[in-house]
């Protein structure tokens, strides 16, 4: 497909996963990501690959666990309440160091919440989400094209670091259509999966486990995980800067919120206001260094997110008191408008001038 095609985010990411060599998809229906499951039910068998509609999200992530343990590329997708159920499996994937890709097309919470778009699973995504000391790599695309481009990256990162990569989208991104290009890019050079369970033929038994009872063994295992996470923080941060030249105010936003902010920033610039945007693309590892550097230069930070304020905590940690960090949050399925962001920027520009 070297031509632009019009696709919704959910279907586009599904096709991108197939192109990235996803061997198996397991999922349970939940709005607003049902197009992924439906698309996979059609396309995976066409490609001779595995599709199962599981009995629950618990089962879906466990099926991913099983397929991943045999060295296959496996994924699941869900939306917020379903991803809560998957946390058990994600913790086990972390403990057992198995690669997996999980897509969360976020909707409003807590509880059953609503089916409106939201970004309120940021904490869950970036703090590990389940029990234990672990992380998942979290990608926060903001266009359908980025969804397409980051799926192969998600699989590569998962395989390279033997861990879960979470693709954090939201209802708008999943549902909206944009023209996209599927381009085959070379993937990363990946280590062999010599740990995979393929039958103990001509080698010793392989064991995939997360239980370490011997004294000190689990602590050692945890330190190994942390060393891996340190490497990721050093090497895998992705972040976009937009119109920071001559800025005094920096808005930090990711995903769909960043698109709306971008429009507001571009209009504010037309009106002469000194404002720019930092858009974290990897939410974990968070672009702490980039924001910390920016804090040396810029006077004021504003976080815009579709939650009551979750990413703002990471921004504050990065800014470390060097500048005020304000929040404009829209929880419970609220979507900020360009006008409301513009109004805030206007007010802030006045106060910065003073």
């Amino acid at each position: 497909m070297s031509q632009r095609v019009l696709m919704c985010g959910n279907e586009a990411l599904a096709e991108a996963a197939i192109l990235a060599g996803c061997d198996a998809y397991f999922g349970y229906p939940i709005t607003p990501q049902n197009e992924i499951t439906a698309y996979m039910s059609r396309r995976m068998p066409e490609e001779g690959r595995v599709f199962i509609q599981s009995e629950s999200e618990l089962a879906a992530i466990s099926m991913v666990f099983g397929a991943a343990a045999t060295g296959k590329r496996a994924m699941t997708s869900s939306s917020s309440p379903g991803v809560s159920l998957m946390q058990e499996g994600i913790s086990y994937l972390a403990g057992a160091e198995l690669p997996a890709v999980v897509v969360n097309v976020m909707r409003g919470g807590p509880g059953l919440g609503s089916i409106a778009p939201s970004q309120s699973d940021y904490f869950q995504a970036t703090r590990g989400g389940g029990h234990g000391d672990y992380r998942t790599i979290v990608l926060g695309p903001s266009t359908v094209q980025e969804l397409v481009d980051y799926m192969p990256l998600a699989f590569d990162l998962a395989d390279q670091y033997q861990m879960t990569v979470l693709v954090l989208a939201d209802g708008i991104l999943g549902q909206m259509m944009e023209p996209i290009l599927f381009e085959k890019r070379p993937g990363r050079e990946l280590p062999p999966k010599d740990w995979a369970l393929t039958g103990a033929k001509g080698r010793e038994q392989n064991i995939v486990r997360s239980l370490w009872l011997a004294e000190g063994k689990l602590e050692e295992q945890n330190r190994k995980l942390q060393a891996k996470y340190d490497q990721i923080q050093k090497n895998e941060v992705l972040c976009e800067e937009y119109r920071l030249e001559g800025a005094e105010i920096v808005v930090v936003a990711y995903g769909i919120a960043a698109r709306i902010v971008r429009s507001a920033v571009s209009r504010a610039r037309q009106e002469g206001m000194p404002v720019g945007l930092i858009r974290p693309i990897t939410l974990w590892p968070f672009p702490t260094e980039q924001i910390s550097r920016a804090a040396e230069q810029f006077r004021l930070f504003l976080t815009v997110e579709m939650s009551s304020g979750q990413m703002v905590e990471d921004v504050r940690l990065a800014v470390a008191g060097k500048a005020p960090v304000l929040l404009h949050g829209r929880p419970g399925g609220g979507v900020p408008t360009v006008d409301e962001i513009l109004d805030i920027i206007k007010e802030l520009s006045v106060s910065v001038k003073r």
Partner: protein
Amino acid sequence: MKTVFARTPSLKDCPTHYCPGCGHGIAHRLVAECIDELDIRERTIGIAPVGCAVLLYDYIDVDCIEVAHGRAPAVATGMKRTNPEKIIFSYQGDGDLASIGAAEILHAGHRGEQLTVIFINNAIFGMTGGQMAPTTTLGQVTATTPRGRTAAEQGYPLQVSEIMALLPGVIYVERTALDGAAGVRKTKKAIKHAFELQVEGAEGLALVEVLSPCPTYWRMPPAKATEWIKTEMTKVFPLGRLKG
């Protein structure tokens, strides 16, 4: 000269951590023997439960995975569907399979997954200290039924095999007991058949429920425990082939 008690190669040569008189050690040996007799060691993947048998892989020398409590049938599904040529078995206790994993085993059976399930029923939670299992019998005293299980308070013992046998996707269900030499022989035959079906590519799930002693939390000596299986357990969990 014929050695009578030769260790089968897929069983590791090490002492187990199980209590004296526990059924797990025997069941492990039977599984290992069947794997070797069918010559499938190099393509078998075993799934350990959460429970006393969580360290299954320390004793059975095949590729193994340890999974979340109750999720073995879902994990097995993920493995088998992506690796149809491999032989996948799960080894699950009654807490794992009949309680927290009830949905997973039901739906694996319902989908007709080509799996071999060894279900060890000892009517109690061993690893966590002798609490009630769904299969605990009426009147049985456990850490969480100190006055004995009653139907009114905790419901009747859950007969998983009978339920599983109802599903079209389940092709073989047999209940056996580790209650003496004859019972052990029958158990091995059943386990072997459950593996054979998968080796032959038979379409559906095969389950063997093994009534197995837990002298420790039944609070009785091993000899009495075997007796209790015969006299008490089999009343609620009748032995024999339920399907296939």
